């Protein structure tokens, strides 16, 4: 079946601009996660949703970052007033439920470059 999809695959923007990154999870998966992977590092947790609500947003670096999942399926990560330090690959994952034993399946990522 279809895996996790993310759009766009690449996004180039200028410092100070607003961007939206989209994630479409595996059908039927109730939990959705966002991670950020900087060059040469492992992914770092940003936020996760159980259904429509953000269950843990402790990884969001500051209030410029926000994510929504209004209908419990597709999620959008929003970054305001982008900074060069926001450049990274943003990964989305989903799992059947939000339990520790469930496997998280990752999408291909969105590479964000802030000039």
């Amino acid at each position, binding site marked *: 079946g279809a895996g996790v999809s993310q759009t766009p695959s690449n996004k180039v923007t200028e410092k100070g601009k607003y961007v939206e990154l989209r994630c479409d999870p595996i059908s039927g998966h109730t939990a959705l996660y966002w991670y950020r992977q900087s060059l040469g590092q492992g*992914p770092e947790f940003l936020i996760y949703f159980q259904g429509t609500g953000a269950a843990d947003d402790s990884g969001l670096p500051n209030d410029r970052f926000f994510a929504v999942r209004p209908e419990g399926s597709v999620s959008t990560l929003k970054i305001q007033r982008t900074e060069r330090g926001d450049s990274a690959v943003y*990964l989305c994952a989903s799992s059947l439920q939000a339990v520790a034993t469930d496997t998280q399946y990752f999408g291909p*990522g969105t590479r964000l470059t802030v000039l």
Partner: protein
Amino acid sequence: AQSVAQPEDQVNVAEGNPLTVKCTYSVSGNPYLFWYVQYPNRGLQFLLKYITGDNLVKGSYGFEAEFNKSQTSFHLKKPSALVSDSALYFCAVRGNKAAGNKLTFGGGTRVLVKP
């Protein structure tokens, strides 16, 4: 806080030889451990996980991993490496409920299998 260490930035191995990628972890409570592989410009692909039970876990593409509680390790192994196994490998951990459902990743180990 939970953490993962992958002590080797890169592992070089000749095709047909055994491959080992090291991982140690620190977590409160029982650990749930995962291995993922990342090919260039691709997302993370799930290889295997340890939840409970047998300490030797078998996964995709001939990979296996051994959970060692006393050494807090979860090393990834493959008896006979292929050139196509060349990729970036990440170990990840989830801890107790208080830690939430986020995965904490190590920094990754690049595997280079030479023909």
